[in-house]
């Protein structure tokens, strides 16, 4: 029999192992999510991330090695974003009718997300570089990183804060919006998309296609607005 360490060194080199691990971890996360009755706290992204992080730690694999395999899955974020066009197209009559509420909710949600994050962060003593990384956390990752770089933040830290915001938003949205007695799927989806970008949108699609479509729009619109608001808010709170 071949020495197991040789097999391991073969696996550690190619993308096969970590690509497979990513899919299996997601399936496990999704199975937990279904077993928990599709409750938002059993977020499949969070479960998969915890499983994979533990596995990386146990095998002493660094993130760069992992990402060589996982990049094929990561790449699909782009096409999946383009695919949001279909639910948006299907909901277009609804979207047209909701133009004013959307603009108002976008402005309110986006300003609240940036300003309250900076206000809380500053009150608790975060330094300016961290605040600059925190400011764009509610927007989709590629945009957030671009904004953070422009206002003096750290791109890697921003990417992590964006992910944490998305997972948290996906978990709190359903109980929070139920407590506020908001029954309008358009409002529920849109607010989640503005505050918690793509991960919030993925959650919205789990519960309602209308919520998902409006969440996708909220995410896209907030990408533009945060680029304008974040530098201003940082000057105010930084």
């Amino acid at each position, binding site marked *: 029999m071949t020495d197991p360490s040789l097999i391991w060194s073969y696996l550690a080199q190619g993308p096969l192992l970590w690509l497979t691990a990513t899919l299996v*971890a997601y399936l496990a996360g999704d199975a937990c999510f279904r077993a928990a009755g599709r409750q938002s706290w059993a977020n499949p992204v969070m479960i998969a991330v915890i499983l*994979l992080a533990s596995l990386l730690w146990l095998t002493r694999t660094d993130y760069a090695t992992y990402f060589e395999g996982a990049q094929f899955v990561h790449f699909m974020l*782009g096409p999946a974003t383009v695919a949001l066009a279909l639910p948006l197209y299907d909901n277009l009559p*609804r979207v047209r009718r909701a133009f004013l509420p959307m603009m*108002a909710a976008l402005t309110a949600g986006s300003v609240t997300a940036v300003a309250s994050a900076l206000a809380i962060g500053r009150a608790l003593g975060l330094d300016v570089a961290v605040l600059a990384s925190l400011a764009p956390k509610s927007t989709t990752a590629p945009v957030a990183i671009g904004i953070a770089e422009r206002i003096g933040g750290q791109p890697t830290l921003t990417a992590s804060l964006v992910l944490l915001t998305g997972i948290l938003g996906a978990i709190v949205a359903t109980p929070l919006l139920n407590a506020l007695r908001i029954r309008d*799927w*358009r*409002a529920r989806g849109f607010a989640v998309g503005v505050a918690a970008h793509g991960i919030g949108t993925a959650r919205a699609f789990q519960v309602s296609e209308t919520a998902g479509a409006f969440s996708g729009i909220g995410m896209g619109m907030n990408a533009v607005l945060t680029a304008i608001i974040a530098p201003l808010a940082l000057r105010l709170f930084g």
Partner: protein
Amino acid sequence: MIMSLAVILGFQLVGEVASRALDLPLPGPVIGLCLLVASCLARPALAHRLRPVTMGLLQHLSLFFVPAGVGVVAHMALIRDQGIALALAIAGSTVLAIGVGALVFVAVAKLTGSTDASALKDAGDD
């Protein structure tokens, strides 16, 4: 299926090129999304052909965030240093932003008469 994927990737490609060439604040895939909506409006048959593949992609939208999510762990030391302040800032602002956004949406929809009975959540489910 291959044709649908090629069309979707094509829209992303055009979006990426436009984003860079025109120095737009929107990322390429979001521009691709807007262009695809416009194309579906011009040719509804396109939406019909793409639907099976786009629905397949969106059903597992969560999956595509996993690799970036594992990156959080790579930066754990950085996050741990200022952990509590960051956690409170993220949690506080996300809860506030979702609540404020949804309440403002509902209030303005009522004010402008753009409520939509067909988009209401049934009282029974969660």
